[in-house]
Every structure is written in C-alpha cells, then in structure tokens.
C-alpha cells in the first residue's frame, strides 16, 4: 500500500476511534466495568473500524478476537 493511502487509513481509524461513544465492557466477566448496550450506530462504527484496520495489516492494532 502506498504511503499516502496508509496515511489516510490511519487518519480515518483515529477519527472513528474518537467517535466511539462508549468503551466496550469487554471485561464484564471480571465485574470491573459496567454493562451498557451498544447502539446500532456504535456497532456500525466498530464494523467500519475493523474493515479499516484490515487494510493496514502490518500495524499492531489490538483486538479482542484472533
């Protein structure tokens, strides 16, 4: 991927991550966070974020799945 394209992908990822309105309560099974349902928009934003991250495969994006 060209440097310019990578730059735009990274910018888009950062912008979408800032848009995530809530933090996922992925650690609910340790009782350390509150449970909150995600809205449809939040699910869609997460979906788009993951699609974006796939385009920059060599970056170290943490993820809760393999």
């Amino acid at each position, binding site marked *: 991927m060209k440097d310019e394209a990578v730059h*735009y992908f990274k910018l888009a990822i950062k912008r979408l991550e800032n848009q995530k309105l809530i933090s996922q309560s992925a650690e609910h099974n*340790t*009782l350390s966070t509150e449970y909150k349902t*995600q809205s449809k928009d939040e699910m869609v934003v997460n979906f*788009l974020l*993951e699609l974006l991250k*796939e385009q920059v495969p060599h970056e170290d994006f943490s993820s*809760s799945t393999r």
Partner: protein
Amino acid sequence: MKILVLQLARFGDILITGPVLKSLRRKYPDARIDFLVRSKFKEAAGQLEGFDRILELSTVNLIGPIIQEEMNEGESIRRAHAFVDNLKYENYDEIINLSFSPASSYLMSMLETDTVIMRGYGRHEDGSFKILDEASEYFYAQVGVGQHNRFHLINILASVAGVDVLDSDLTYSFKAQTPLAVTPGSIAIHIGASQEGKRIPVLKWISFIREFGEIFPNTPLILLGAGSESEDAEKIAGSSSHAHLYNYVGKTKWSDVFGVLAKCKMLVAADSSLVHAAGLVGTSVFNISNPTVNFWETGPRSPGSFVYFENDFEMLNTRDLAQTMTASINGFKPANVYIGVQGIPAFDGPMTGTEFQWDLIAALYWGADFPRVNPAMAEAVAHLQNLNDVVLENLANADKIDPKILAEILKRADDIQMLISQQMTDLQPLFRFMEVERIRIAPGTREEIIKSMITCHERCAVVLQVFLSFQVQEQKEMADGQL
C-alpha cells in the same frame, strides 16, 4: 429455509469453504443458500458449488468515503446501515460465519434476531466478543500457529456449519475448462503466496526448475500466479533453459486456473491458495511448507499429496526437493515428507513436541484420558484447582463482599493464573480452554454475571478434579506395578 454463509477472509479460506458448502447443500438440498464474500474474491468464489447466490461485501464502497481528504464518515455509516438492512431483509433462518475475524463478528451482531440460528464469531449487545458455537470455541482456543490442534481447517469449518464433510465433498464433479494449452501430465507451479513468510525466493525456484528439468526434461512445467507475481515469474522463466516451460502468471482468470490444474498431474506450491484449488479438482499437490503455517490445518487434501517441510526457505535444498518430488511422482513415499492420509492429522509423519498437548486437548474436548504429567505440572494443576476454589468461594459469598474488593480478588486470581501459565507452557491447551470458558460469560446484571461465573468456575473445577484424579490413579497403578 434460507441460509447465509459469510466468508470474509481471503482466497485460501474461500476455497477451503468449498467442501463445506457442498456438505451444506447435501444436508439441505432444498434450502436457499447465499454466500457472502468480499467483492475482490467474488470470481474465485464463483468457481465453487453448493450455493444459489453470491453476495458481495464491497470494502471500497463502505470505507471509501472515510479514506479521502474530505472525510465523510457519515456517508460510510449510512452505506454500512444500508448494507446490513439489505441482508436483514432476507430473513435468513441460519447465518454461518466462517471468517473468524473482528469485522465479521460485528456484522454478525447486527444481523442477529431472536429467531435466526447464528454460528461462528459474533458480538454481545455491549460489543464484547461472543462465540456462538462449540466448534468456534475450539477454534478460538486451540487452532493456529503456536497452538496444538490437529484437525484440518476444512473439518473445523464444517463443524462450525453443523455439517460433516465426506471425502466426496473434498473434490468437485465439475469439469473445469480453459482455452489455455495444457498438455496432460504437466506440472503446475505456483511461485507466490499470500504472505512474505510463505514465499520461496525466486533464486530457489530457478534452481528447483533446473534440478527438476535434469530429471524430467520433457515434462511441461506451467507457472501460475497473480498479476503481482508477474515480475518474479519473468525472472524465473527468463533464467530457465527448460524446453517446455510455460509462463501463465498474471494471464489467467480463476476459471483458467481451475482448468489448468484439472489437466495437470501435480501442483507444486508453498501453502498458497492454489493448494486448495488443486484439491477441489482432485489434482495432487507437492506442498512446500515452513513453520509460518500449520500445514496439517491448511495443507492439501487431494489424494496423492505430499508436504515437504523446511524450517527456512533460504536454506531450501533444491536438489533434494527435486529428487523427493521425483520419488513421489513415481509412486514412492520419500522418507522426508508428510503424506496426505485419511485421519487426524490429515498427514502421516512425525508431529514432534505436540503429543502431550494433543492428548490434553483430546481429554478436554472429547473425554479421552488425561495424559500423565510430571510432578511440577501436577503441582501447577493443584494450584489452579485451589485458585479456582477460592474464586468459587468468593463468588458464592458475593452479596457479602464489597463489589470493588470482589473485583480485585478476581483480578488477583487472573494474575496468579497468568503467572502459572507462563511457567507451565506445556499446559497451554488447558489455560486456553479455561480462558474460553470465561469468554462464554455474557454481559448482564451483576447478579446474572456472578451466576454465570459460578457456572463457569464449577465447570473448570470438574475438569481440574478429573485431571488430577487421573494422576492419582496412575500413581496408584505404578505403585501397584501395573504400569
């Protein structure tokens, strides 16, 4: 009945899904089966059987508005909603996600309804990771490089889909056609691979073709590959004096690739997607593998296939490779290859260093006897059991404990378990099993989560108890002189 199968991964995974689609069609001959793939891989998916309609996920369309100077994330969100709504409109009875990716898990969560049967990876309503079936739990815990699974991925995908793959599902009955000239008995060579670590250096291919040509000067060789591999192919073809070398790299459609492979005697490749294409047309494969891949999970399944393993492709001995391949073509089983067989694993050869872990997996997942462990491991398992008991005791008294203190106790227990797992790497399948037990806990009220956690730790308690009881039993039998 309407079924949607999601395969949002790349070429190899799409082709590996082929036998699963065929099995699904056999199980549900009258169902409407839709197959969702990325637009980029639609043509490859179109070569498969067992579905009625291909649906496309266009990544470019969805994320296009965000990856430009004037970012328009609102438009991307609108398009994603429209894409999801179109799928929901179909009212599928069953949705099977064979992708194992974060993106696909979010898509699944948006397609979930009260009535649809969901399989694969998904998301809870709070966005946390959710595993929808036992085969996917097994995949998450035990499959991949560094893990100790021995099932082939085709069989695992079939389990996720709830079907059994028969040998007849591995090969397609269609007659692949191509206008390209292919002499029957040719050898196809795929020079590329999807990842850098799986690629054989160009100079090694040049050397291999020279060595092979000295043994079989009249056997036609056909180079196959994608357009991005054309430059390497030209170097290889330009350096070869083989009289019958044909370079088709970058000049084929997927239908041509299947057609060429169907006419060839064998494919030589390095864990690439064409290994699976050859499998579907029943052409044997001489697969050259290295440690970046678990070949027993994704290797060739067509009859007469072999795997030649080399730790470092830079050290590939091309003379030995050519001689070994010659022996396999002539019907011998060379000593230094793994041969495809019917069984688990799907290859016959030494699986060094994994016997104990595989036995442990067998005990954890389908009730085989637990393997014998050394005293240090037995002590570690006993520590885990004590730790699990402490957690259970605190959870049982959760209503009497300050929530912050309880959360701290659970965190400490996690930390200790992590320390034990770092010391006892041979017990990795057990730790992975217990981790997935935890992931199964769904979000909910505090009371609901505590109830689920108690169930989870009770299940772990049973497993640990059985594990330890096997050790005690073995010690007793040893003392009695029976072992």
